[in-house]
Each structure stands twice: as C-alpha cells, then as structure tokens.
C-alpha cells in the first residue's frame, strides 16, 4: 500500500451564514489520480482554495505527508508542494511561454543580488539549468516551438498545457488541476488524458483534479470523491460511483 500524501479530514468552510463546504474528507495516495466531482456550485473549487491556502478553512485538518498545512499562507503551502492550476487559466500573458516556466522555478534559482549583478559563474549555471529544465518540460507538453511566444497568444488548449507544465516546474508533491479539460475539444481532451498518464507513469506525479467531463474522470481516476452542496455524497472507485444511486440523483435530479 502506497503512502498517503494528502489527507483531509472534516474540512469545513463557512462564509458568514453559508456553509460552503461541510466536513469533506479525502485521501490522496502516492501516484494516485483522485477526482473531485459534483454538480455546479457544489463547493469543489472552494475545497481547492482551502487546500491551497487561498481560503483559511473554518474547521478540519489538512495533512501533507503527515504535516498539518491548514492555515498557512498560499505561497507557503505551494512551497511545501501543493501546486494548482486555475479554472480560468492564469498565465503571465505578456511573458513568453518559457519565461512562465522560469518564474515557477524562482525558488530553485540563484537569487543572490550580487551574483546576478556580476553574472557570476554560479548565477549563469543556475540560469542555464533553469532554462534547460524549462525546455525539457516544454518538450513534454509539445510546446517547444512556441517557447518564445507570449503566453497570451497561445491557443487555449496550449495555455492549459503550459499551465500544467508550469506547475510541474515547482517539483510538486501533489498537482491539483481545477477543471483541466474545460473548454477543450475532444482531441485536446484526449491529449490531456495522455499527458496526465505520462505525468503519473514517468514523473510519479500525484494528481487531485476537479472535472466535469465524466468520460475523462472515469477513465483516469483511481478514486472519486463526490460532493453535493458542500457535503460529501459518496466516494469510491469509478465503478462504485457510476452505479451509486445517490450520485445519479444529485446529477440528474429525481426521476
């Protein structure tokens, strides 16, 4: 049995009188792909925001590799290896694709002021390595030919892939994708599926994703958590979820 990377118990988020997330629990193990699904407005993105420190959860615990991370600032959580993409892509649009990837490596670079000022060999080496690593990942997501184009000018599907590559640059423990297939055509969705497969097989990536495309969810997930109106509804393997009457009711309504 593989190790638990992320363990969320009893997570609740309250906005004034609205209980947006109500004791949600989920566990993500190493190299697993876990999907978080639910109807619109179910609180999926709120869960993401709690996990990544954009909101401070009202209650509950979030353990990353056994260490509590709830209540930390967003950038601190990201540094611990919880890195996310956004529902509406958030790239640095005026910067080139490769620069987007360099930014993500900021923490691993030589940021010594004097080293940069005088271009010391150590500084050059660090910059060169960052560039090589960025090149490697651009190749992985098939964007090498667009490396020097401003990110904002790329096609939507390319921007999505670039955002995933940007996350991978930070060497994350867990990759969180917020509706990665939204707005993609069937071909691009297939590519995305292949990419997530590659991430898992070759790079030992652990993925937690929110998705509405059931075909995609069912085919790549090891485990699915369903929430409805902020409350956990069901969790289990894709097969169990597919046949769960509660889930069908939540999605399709009462027959």
């Amino acid at each position, binding site marked *: 049995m593989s190790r638990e990377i992320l363990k969320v118990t009893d997570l609740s988020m309250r906005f004034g009188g609205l209980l947006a997330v109500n004791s949600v629990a989920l566990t993500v193990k190493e190299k697993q792909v876990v999907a978080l699904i639910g109807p619109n407005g179910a609180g999926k993105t709120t869960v993401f925001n709690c996990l990544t420190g954009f909101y401070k959860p009202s209650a509950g615990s979030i353990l990353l590799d056994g260490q509590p991370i709830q209540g930390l600032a967003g950038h601190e959580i*990201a540094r611990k290896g919880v890195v996310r993409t956004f529902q509406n892509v958030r790239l*640095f649009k005026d*910067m080139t694709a490769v620069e987007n990837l*360099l*930014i*993500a490596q900021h923490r691993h*670079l030589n940021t010594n002021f004097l080293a940069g000022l005088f271009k010391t060999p150590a500084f050059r080496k660090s910059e060169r390595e960052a560039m090589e690593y960025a090149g490697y990942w651009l190749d992985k997501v098939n964007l090498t030919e667009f490396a020097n184009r401003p990110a904002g000018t790329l096609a939507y599907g390319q921007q999505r892939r670039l955002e995933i590559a940007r*996350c991978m640059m930070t060497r994350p423990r867990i990759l969180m994708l917020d509706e990665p297939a939204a707005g993609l055509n069937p071909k691009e969705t297939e590519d995305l599926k292949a990419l997530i497969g590659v991430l898992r097989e070759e790079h030992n990536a652990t993925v937690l994703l929110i998705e509405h495309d059931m075909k995609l969810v069912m085919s790549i997930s090891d485990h699915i958590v369903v929430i409805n109106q902020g409350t956990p509804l069901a969790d289990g393997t894709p097969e169990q979820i597919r046949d769960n009457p509660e889930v069908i009711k939540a999605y399709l309504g009462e027959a």
Partner: protein
Amino acid sequence: MNKYLKSALFSALLVWAVAFPVLGLKLSIVGINLEVHGTGPLTLGVIALCSVLMFLRVLFSQQVGALFKSSRGPLISPKVGQFLTLPRTQRWIIIGLIAAALVWPFFGSRGAVDIATLILIYVMLGLGLNIVVGLAGLLDLGYVGFYAVGAYSYALLSHYFGLGFWICLPIAGLMSASFGFLLGFPVLRLRGDYLAIVTLGFGEIIRLFLRNLTGLTGGPNGISNIPKPTFFGLSFERTAAEGMRTFHEFFGLEYNPVSKVVFLYLVALLLALLALFVINRLLRMPIGRAWEALREDEIACRALGLNPTVIKLSAFTLGACFAGFAGSFFAARQGLVTPESFTFIESAIILAIVVLGGMGSQLGVILAAVVMILLPEMMREFSEYRMLMFGALMVLMMIWRPQGLLPMQRPHMELHK
C-alpha cells in the same frame, strides 16, 4: 450635422471658459488692493480666433479626420517604432548617448551643463521609481519622501559629523532603502488606489517631520553649506578648506569655475549610469522576472510559491535606495536642503517622467526626464503657464501615445533550440 453643431458650440464655449480666466484677466496692485482688469483687445481677439477655430475643427471633425487619414500614415511607421523599441537597438542608442554625454560638457556652456546635471538627477529618480511603478506595478506617490531621506542623510551627516560626500552616498542609499523597507511593510498589504493614497501620505509625513524637527534639521530653513563632492580628496573651490587641496592647484591649472560644474555633471552621470546598469541587470535576474509576474497576476504567483510581500518589498526597497543616491547628490549639488524641495509636486514630476517615458522603459525614462526638465527651462518666459503646459502635455500624450514615448520591450529570455 446637428449633433456636431451642438458639440462644436460647446467646444467653442469651453475654449472661452478655459482661456478667459487664465489669459483674459489680469490682477494688478492698486495701493494695497488687488484689482481685476480685463486685458487688451489683442488677447481677447486671439481667444476669439481660437474658439472659432475650435468650433470649425469640431464641426468638420469628420471631414478633417478623413483628410488626414487619406493623406498620410501614422507619424512614425510601425516598423521604425518596432525597431526603436527593440532591446538591442536601445542598447546601441544608450552606448551612443553615453559617449556623447561624456564628451559634450567640456564644450558646453556652464548653464547648459548645470541643467544637464539637474536632468541627470531626475533620470536617476525616474529610473528608481520605474522599478516600483513600471516593473512591479505599485503606484507610489510618495517617492519624494525617500529622495528627502537621502538628501537629509548626507546633509545631517556632513553637518554634524563632517563626513564627506563619497562616504555618505552609500549611507544615504542605505538609509533610504531602510525607510522604504520599513514603510513598505504596512503599506504593501494595500493595492492600487489605496496604496497610492497611503504612499502619498507617507511622503508628506516625511516632509513634515523634516520641517518640524527644528532642533535636528533646522526646520523650514533647512541645512546649508553642504560641501560639494571632491575628486579623490581634491576640492573644486577656489580656495580649499584647511587640510584639503584644490583640484587646480594639484594639477597646476588655472582656476576655472566651470570645472566645478563639469565635475558635478560627471558625478551625476556616473551615478545615473550606475543606476542604469544595475536596473538593466535586475531585469534579467529572477527577481526582475518575479516583479513582472507579480504585476501581471499576483494570485498565480502565490500559487507557484512566490511570496508576494517579499517581492513587492524588494522593489520598494531598491526603488527607495536609488532615490537615496539621487537625494544625497542633490544635497551636494545645491549645498542647501530645505523641506520645500520635497513637496508632492516633485513626486508628481517624477511619476510623470515614468509615465511619459513609457512604464518600465529605461530609455523612455531618460528621454522623458530630458523633456520634462528641459522644456520648462527653455520656456522660462512662459513660466506662469508652466502647469498649464504640463497638463496640456499630459493630455496630448494620452491622446497620441498612451503607452509612453518609448514603451518598454522587455529583454525576453529566449529558449535556444
């Protein structure tokens, strides 16, 4: 037509409304009273002519617009504009400018060199503020506060401890930087307009402090007799203070008052070039990229593990540091600092230089500093209308080149395949 007639009439009236109080009325002192007089028919005639022209211009705006559109293209063709803003071109232009800047003061007049020195101070300030506003995207309206801290650091250290310019220069930079750091902490939680307002307040607080700390800073009278920079211990005065030698004695030259001005100019040039070099490097360093990324999307930055506070603070601190250098040089050049040199209008001018030049563009800042300082100097006869021209310039810029004189083209990092 009817629609145009209405707006044309309105425009003509607006010309009167703007021009008549400014140009058409004169105050004169009669005894101890002020009296308002109308001016002569000539001025009124000119205003009338202008309003008629405006009337026609708006009435036939469509036809005029069509005429211009058909007869010629844009002022500078996009290709040339593109070429001018390329980083490589900018570098060559800068090298050429440096060479010219080093040579000409030896041939220029004393007044010209003096104005050039002033321009260089504003170049330094503009470059510093450019980090904060242009690169990191933080609107700072209190930048002059750090300029004041730099100036007073040198003034006070030299007044009370007799320290020289070259020792005080780095100290002044450090002082300003630490002020930037301390003020940055509370201020940088805010965004956009709120940040602008609070920085504006801080700028004024610093000035008021200097003004009211009479025991230390001399209050409104400021501090005078601040020594000028020396050339490796050689003074440029006619007679040296005791224990010092003068430049002309040491080299056996005739005393020439211009040499002092030229030396000050060269020091300013050195400092400005230093600022230019450092900022140029910063742009290519991880921190420079982080500033830019933060300006574009703070949330994405946080999601990638970049600490927004640290990044903003570094921009704020570095920007303040350059203001400190400029300030201590300013104190040395003037020989006198008073709180009145650091009013809000200075902040506005520096900000105007940054915006006019094109946010983030270094060559743009230099060009804008030249325009902003040189124009008022050349048009001294019209100094009453200085603010009017200032406003007009801004309006015209907004219409024709909202992106600035030479908008920034960042040195992009390229992936070589």
